[in-house]
C-alpha cells in the first residue's frame, strides 16, 4: 500500500465509495426483489427452499412410520404408501441433499474466497428458479394422487408401465431432469468460481478446505448427473413414444437403466456427503482453536473419494445375477473408498487433539454426527462385501445403513453449519439452549428409530413394504422405530423454531462470534457487496494470521474498493498462484433469468401432459429469453480496455480464450454434455453385448450417409478454425463468409445424419437397435441445431459490430463448442455407420 493511497482514504472518500457500491449491488425494491441475482441472496433462497422440501419429505417419512408402527395397519392405502416413500426418497435426495450444498456454497464462497461475486450470478439465479419450479411440480403431485410410485430408483419395467405408474413417472423424469440442469449450472458456477475468482495470493495450498471439497464435488456432478440425464432421455422416449429401450420383448433390457441410474446414484451419495464434511473441516479448526492438522490429507481424501466413488455403482446391483467377478471388482473399490473416509475422520480427531476444544453447539452436532456416521460407514464396509449384501440387500438393514450415513454424515453436519453460520445471516446467534435440546432429541430419536432397523432387516423385513404380518419378529422393533422417528422429528422441529423465532429483541452480536480464522467471517450481513475490498491473502487462516485485515478490508484499503463505472466487478486470478489477471464485470439484476427458467419449466410441464403445442411455444420463449440474456449480459465490450483496480494495479477488463471465465464455463458445460453423450454410446454397446445379434437383422443406417455427414461435420469444424484465424486478422467480411459456410456445412451434416436411418426406414418402435441409432442421431442433430443458433448469433454480433479481433469471446467459445460437436459427430457416425460392419 503506497502512502498516496493511505492519504486518499479520507472518511468522505470512503463514504462515497460505499454509497457507490451499495447502489450498484443493491437488490431491487418491491416485487423486483425476486429478480435479484446476487449469490448471497440466491444462497439464502436456495437454502430456505431446500429446507422446506426437507420438512415436507420428513412429514412423508412420519406417515410411512405411522403406517409401519403396527402390523396389518391400514393408516395409508398401499398406493399412497408407495407414493409417500417414493417421494420421500426423491425429495430428500434431489430437492434437499444436493441443493442444500449448492445453497451453502453460493452463499459462503464469495466471501470465503475473498471475491465480491462468483462469475455467473445470473446462472445461479437461473438454477435456483429451475430448482424451485421443478421441486414444487414434483412435490405437488402427491396432492393430486399423481405422485411417482415406483421407488426413487424408478426401475423399469415397473415404472415404464403406464397402467401402473400413470403420470407419476413422467413427473419424476421431467421434474428431475429440470433439477439436474440446475445442478449442472451450479457445478459450472462453482468450478469456475473456485478456480478463477480467489482473492489475490490465495494459492491453491491456501484455499479454504471447503473450497477444495466443493471443487471436487462440482467436478463429480459433471460426471455423475449426465448419465442420469441420458437415462431419463431413454426412459421418457419409451414412455412417450414407445421406443423399447427397456422392453425385453423388443430387444431392450431393464438392467441398462440400473447401470445408468447407479452410475449417477452412487457418486451422488458422496456429492451429498463431501460438502457436509467440508462444513466440518471449517468448524473443527475454529473450535479446536488451531489450523487443521493434515490439510493435504483432506485434499487426498476429497480427491480420492471423488474418483473411487465412480467405481462403486454395481454394489447396488449385487443381486442382479452379474458374473461374480464383476461384482468382486466393485466390492473391492467399495472397500477401498472407506480408506479416504477414515482419513477424514482421523484428520478431525488429530486436529482436536492438537488444539484446545471449545465444545459448542456446532461441535455437538458435528461430533455427534460423526459418531453416527461411523456406524453407517462400518455397516457400509459390511454390505460392500458381496455375500453380506446378498442377505442385506433391499432390507431394512440397508435402510438403517443409508440413514446412518446420510443423517450422520450429512444432516447433522448441516445443522452444525446452520448453528455455526447463522450469525452471517443476521449478526445474531441461535440459542445454545435450543441447540442442545435439539441435538439430544435428534441424537436419541435417530438411534432409537434406526438402530433397530439393522435387526429388522436381518430378520428378513424387505424395504418398501406397506404392511407386514404379525409374529415374524418385527412388531416391537417397528414400533420402536416409529417412536424414535417422532422423537427425532421433535428435535428437527426445535431447530426450525430456533431458526424462525423472532430475534429482534436479541442484541446483535459481534461480527465473528466464534473467532474463526477463515475469510467468510468478513462478510457483512447488511451489505450485498460480498467484500468491501478484495484483500491480498497470505495465510490459510487470514483472520488469525493477518493482523488488521478486517479493518483494512472494511476501509477499502485493498482492490476494487469502489464501483466508479457503476458496474458489478470482481477480480479474476490465475488457477495455481491466484495472480490477478482481469477485472471481471458480472451480470446484474435481470428478469431474463426468471423468464428463461420459468419458460423452460413450462416446456417440461407441457411435455409431462403431452401438450405439444404449448411445449413448443414455451420452448420458443425459452430460446428467446436465453438469446436476449446472452446478447445483453455476456461478452460485454468495455468502454476502456483497462482499469485501475487499486494498489497501483491495472488490469484488463476484457479477456477471451482459456484465460477467461466464459471459456471455462463453456468447457465445463460441454464436459457434462459429453458425459451424457458417452452414456448414450455406452447404451449402444450395452445392447451389442447382451444380444447375439443386436441388430436383430434390421438394416442399419448404411455407410454412405453417415460418412457424408461425417465429412461435412469435419469440414464445418475446419471452417470454424479458419474463421477464428481470419477473425484474429480482423477481416470482418471473411469471418462472416466463413460463418455462413460453416452453417451450411453443419446443416448439411445434420440432414445427412438424419438421411441414414431415414432412408433405410428404421422404425424406432420396432426394436431397440433402430431406437438407439435414432437417439444417437437425434442427439447429434440437436447439437448441430444448437451450433447453428450459435453461428447465427455470432453472425448477428458481427453485423452489430460486436465481434472483432479484440473482442472475439463469442467466436472463441463457439469454436470450443465446435471441438466438442466434432467429437460427438465423429463418434456417433463411426459408431452407427461403421461398427455394424466391424463387429
Amino acid at each position, binding site marked *: 500500500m503506497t502512502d498516496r493511497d493511505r492519504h486518499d482514504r479520507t472518511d468522505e472518500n470512503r463514504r462515497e465509495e460505499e454509497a457507490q457500491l451499495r447502489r450498484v449491488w443493491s437488490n431491487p425494491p418491491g416485487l423486483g426483489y425476486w429478480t435479484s441475482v446476487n449469490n448471497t441472496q440466491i444462497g439464502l433462497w436456495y437454502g430456505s427452499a431446500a429446507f422446506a422440501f426437507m420438512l415436507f419429505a420428513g412429514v412423508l417419512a412420519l406417515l410411512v412410520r405411522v403406517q409401519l408402527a403396527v402390523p396389518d395397519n391400514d393408516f395409508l392405502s*398401499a398406493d399412497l404408501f*408407495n407414493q409417500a416413500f417414493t417421494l420421500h426418497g426423491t425429495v430428500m435426495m434431489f430437492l434437499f441433499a444436493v441443493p442444500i450444498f449448492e445453497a451453502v456454497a453460493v452463499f459462503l464462497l464469495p466471501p470465503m474466497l475473498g471475491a465480491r461475486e462468483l462469475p455467473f450470478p445470473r446462472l445461479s439465479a437461473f438454477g435456483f428458479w429451475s430448482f424451485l419450479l421443478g421441486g414444487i411440480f414434483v412435490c405437488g403431485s402427491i396432492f393430486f394422487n399423481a405422485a411417482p410410485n415406483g421407488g426413487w430408483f424408478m*426401475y423399469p*419395467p*415397473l415404472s415404464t408401465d403406464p397402467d401402473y405408474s400413470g403420470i407419476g413417472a413422467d413427473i419424476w423424469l421431467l421434474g428431475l431432469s429440470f433439477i439436474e440442469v440446475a445442478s449442472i449450472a451450479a457445478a459450472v458456477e462453482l468450478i469456475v468460481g473456485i478456480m478463477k475468482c480467489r482473492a489475490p495470493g490465495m494459492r491453491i495450498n491456501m484455499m479454504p478446505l471447503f473450497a477444495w471439497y466443493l471443487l471436487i464435488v462440482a467436478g463429480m456432478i459433471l460426471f455423475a448427473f449426465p448419465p442420469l440425464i441420458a437415462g431419463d432421455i431413454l426412459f421418457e422416449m419409451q414412455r412417450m413414444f414407445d421406443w423399447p429401450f427397456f422392453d*425385453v420383448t423388443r430387444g*431392450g*433390457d*431393464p*438392467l441398462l437403466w440400473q447401470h445408468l441410474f447407479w452410475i449417477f446414484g452412487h457418486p451422488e451419495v458422496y456429492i451429498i456427503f463431501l460438502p457436509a464434511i467440508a462444513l466440518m473441516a471449517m468448524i473443527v479448526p475454529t473450535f479446536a482453536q488451531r489450523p487443521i*492438522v*493434515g490439510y493435504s490429507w483432506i485434499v487426498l481424501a476429497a480427491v480420492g473419494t471423488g474418483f473411487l466413488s465412480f467405481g462403486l455403482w454395481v454394489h447396488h446391483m449385487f*443381486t*442382479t*445375477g452379474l458374473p*461374480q467377478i464383476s*461384482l*468382486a471388482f466393485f*466390492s*473391492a473399490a467399495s*472397500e477401498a473408498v472407506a480408506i479416504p473416509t477414515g*482419513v477424514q*475422520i*482421523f*484428520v478431525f*480427531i*488429530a486436529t*482436536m*487433539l*492438537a488444539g484446545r*476444544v471449545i*465444545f459448542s453447539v456446532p461441535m455437538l452436532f458435528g*461430533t455427534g454426527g*460423526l*459418531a453416527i456416521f*461411523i*456406524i453407517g460407514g462400518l*455397516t457400509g*464396509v*459390511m454390505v460392500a*462385501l*458381496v*455375500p*453380506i449384501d*446378498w*442377505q*442385506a*440387500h*433391499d432390507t431394512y438393514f440397508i435402510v438403517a445403513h443409508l440413514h446412518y450415513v446420510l443423517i450422520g454424515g450429512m444432516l447433522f453436519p448441516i445443522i452444525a453449519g446452520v448453528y455455526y453460520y447463522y450469525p452471517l445471516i443476521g449478526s445474531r446467534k441461535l440459542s445454545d439452549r435450543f441447540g442442545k435440546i435439539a441435538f439430544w432429541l435428534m441424537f436419541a430419536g435417530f438411534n432409537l428409530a434406526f438402530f433397530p432397523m439393522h*435387526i429388522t432387516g*436381518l*430378520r*428378513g*423385513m*424387505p424395504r*418398501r*413394504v406397506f*404392511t407386514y404380518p404379525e409374529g*415374524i*419378529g418385527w412388531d416391537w422393533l417397528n414400533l420402536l422405530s416409529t417412536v424414535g422417528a417422532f422423537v427425532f422429528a421433535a428435535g428437527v422441529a426445535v431447530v426450525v423454531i430456533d431458526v424462525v423465532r423472532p430475534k429482534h429483541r436479541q442484541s446483535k452480536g459481534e461480527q465473528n462470534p466464534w473467532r474463526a480464522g477463515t475469510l467468510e467471517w468478513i462478510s457483512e450481513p447488511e451489505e450485498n457487496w460480498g467484500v468491501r475490498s478484495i484483500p491480498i491473502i497470505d495465510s490459510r487462516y487470514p483472520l488469525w494470521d493477518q493482523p488488521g485485515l478486517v479493518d483494512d478490508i472494511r476501509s477499502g484499503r485493498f482492490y476494487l474498493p469502489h464501483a466508479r463505472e457503476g458496474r458489478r466487478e470482481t477480480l479474476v486470478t490465475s488457477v495455481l498462484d491466484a495472480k490477478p489477471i482481469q477485472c471481471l464485470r458480472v451480470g446484474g439484476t435481470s428478469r431474463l433469468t426468471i423468464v428463461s427458467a420459468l419458460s423452460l419449466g413450462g416446456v417440461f410441464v407441457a411435455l409431462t401432459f403431452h401438450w405439444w403445442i404449448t411445449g413448443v411455444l414455451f420452448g420458443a420463449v425459452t430460446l428467446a429469453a436465453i438469446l436476449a440474456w446472452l446478447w445483453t449480459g455476456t461478452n460485454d465490450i468495455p468502454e476502456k480496455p483497462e482499469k485501475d483496480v487499486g494498489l497501483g494495479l491495472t488490469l484488463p477488463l476484457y479477456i477471451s480464450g482459456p484465460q477467461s471465465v466464459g471459456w471455462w464455463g463453456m468447457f465445463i458445460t460441454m464436459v457434462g454434455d459429453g458425459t451424457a453423450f458417452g452414456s448414450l454410446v455406452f447404451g449402444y454397446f450395452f445392447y451389442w453385448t447382451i444380444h447375439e445379434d443386436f441388430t436383430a437383422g434390421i438394416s442399419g443406417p448404411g455407410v454412405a450417409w453417415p460418412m457424408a455427414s461425417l465429412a461435412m461435420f469435419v469440414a464445418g469444424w475446419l471452417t470454424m478454425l479458419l474463421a477464428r484465424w481470419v477473425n484474429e486478422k480482423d477481416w470482418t467480411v471473411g469471418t462472416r463468409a466463413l460463418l455462413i459456410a460453416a452453417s451450411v456445412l453443419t446443416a448439411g451434416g445434420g440432414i445427412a445424419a438424419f438421411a441414414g436411418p431415414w432412408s433405410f426406414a428404421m422404425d424406432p418402435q420396432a426394436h431397440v437397435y433402430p431406437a438407439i441409432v435414432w437417439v444417437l442421431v437425434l442427439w447429434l442433430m440437436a447439437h448441430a441445431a444448437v451450433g447453428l443458433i450459435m453461428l447465427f448469433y455470432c453472425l448477428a454480433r458481427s453485423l452489430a459490430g460486436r465481434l472483432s479481433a479484440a473482442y472475439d469471446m463469442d467466436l472463441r467459445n463457439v469454436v470450443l463448442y465446435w471441438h466438442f460437436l466434432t467429437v460427438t459427430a465423429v463418434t456417433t457416425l463411426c459408431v452407427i455407420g461403421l461398427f455394424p460392419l466391424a463387429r
Partner: protein
Amino acid sequence: MPPTENRPRAKPHLPLFILPFCLAGCSGSQSALSPAGEEASSIYLLLIVTTCGAAVIWCLVTALLVYAGRSRRHVYSAGAGQKLILWGGAILPTSILCLLLGYALWLMPATRPWLTNNETSGFRIEATGEQYWWRFAYRDAENGISFDTANELRLPVGERIRFALRASDVIHSFWIPSLGGKMDMIPGRTNFFSLEATRPGIYRAPCAEFCGTSHALMAFTVVVMEKEPFREWMERQTNLLRPRETEGARLFARHGCAACHTIRGTQARGRIGPDLTDIGARQTIAAGTLANTAENIARFIRAPHAVKPGVKMPAFPMIPQAELTALAAYLKGLQ
C-alpha cells in the same frame, strides 16, 4: 458334486456381547440370523465377524473422539497428529479392509459355487415371479419329473438344489432369508443359482424387490423336508389323479376359474394365475397373505382387491353365497 459339499458346516462360537443379536435371530422363520442353509450359515458367520469388528472399531474411534473433544491438560503436537492420521486413518484401515476383502472374495465362489449343465439337465426348480405371486416348476427330464405348483416350495434337506429364476412382468427378487441370500428375477433374463437347506422346517420368503402396489403381499412358504418324504411327495405330484365330477369341480368350471387356474388331474388348465392343485395343503393362500382356511379362500374369491390391492384376479361378487362356500370347501379339500 459341488466343491462345498465336504466343507464342515459353520458352527460359530459367539462372543457374549453379541448375544442380543442371536436372541433377535432365534424367533423368526424368515431370518438371516437363524440360518438353516449352507449359504445363510456362511454369511451369518461373516456377519458375526464383521459386526464384532465394527463394534470394537466404533467403540475405539468414538472413545478417541470424546477424549479429543474434552478439555485436556495435554495438547498434542501437529506432528503427533500427522502420525495418528497416517497410522489410524490410513494404514490400519487399509490392512483390516484388505483382510476382510480377501475373506469375502474367497467366500463368494465358495458360497455360490458354479454347477455345470445348469440349463440342460438334472433336477432343477424354475421359479417365476409374477405380480404378486410365485410360479414354481419342478423339472427333471431324465427322471420324468415335470409338474408345476405355486406359492409354496418344497425342498429336500442336505441337497443342493438348482434354481432358474425368471420374471414374467416386472423385476422381483427371490429370497429365502433362512437358507441364503437373494437373487433377482428380471424379465428377459434367466438367473441361475442354488441353495442347500441344512435343517428341516417351514420358512417364509418375501419378495425382495419392489414390484408394485402389493409388493408387501408377495411371499411364499418353503417347506424343507427330509429326503425320503420329499421323494414321495414328488412322486405323488407327478402321478396325480383327481375325481373330475364333484360339485366343486363343476362350480370351478362354471364360474370360469379354469380359464386362469390349473388343477392337475382335472379339466382346469389355465396358466394365467397360480396353480391350485394342492392349494388345500399349503400353509397360506394369496402368496403368503392369508391363513389357509375355507373362509379366507371364500373371502379372497369374493373381493381379491380388498385383500391384495392391485391384484390381477377379478372380483366375483356375483357368485351366490352357497356356491362360494362349496367352492371354497372344494379348494380347501385339494390336498
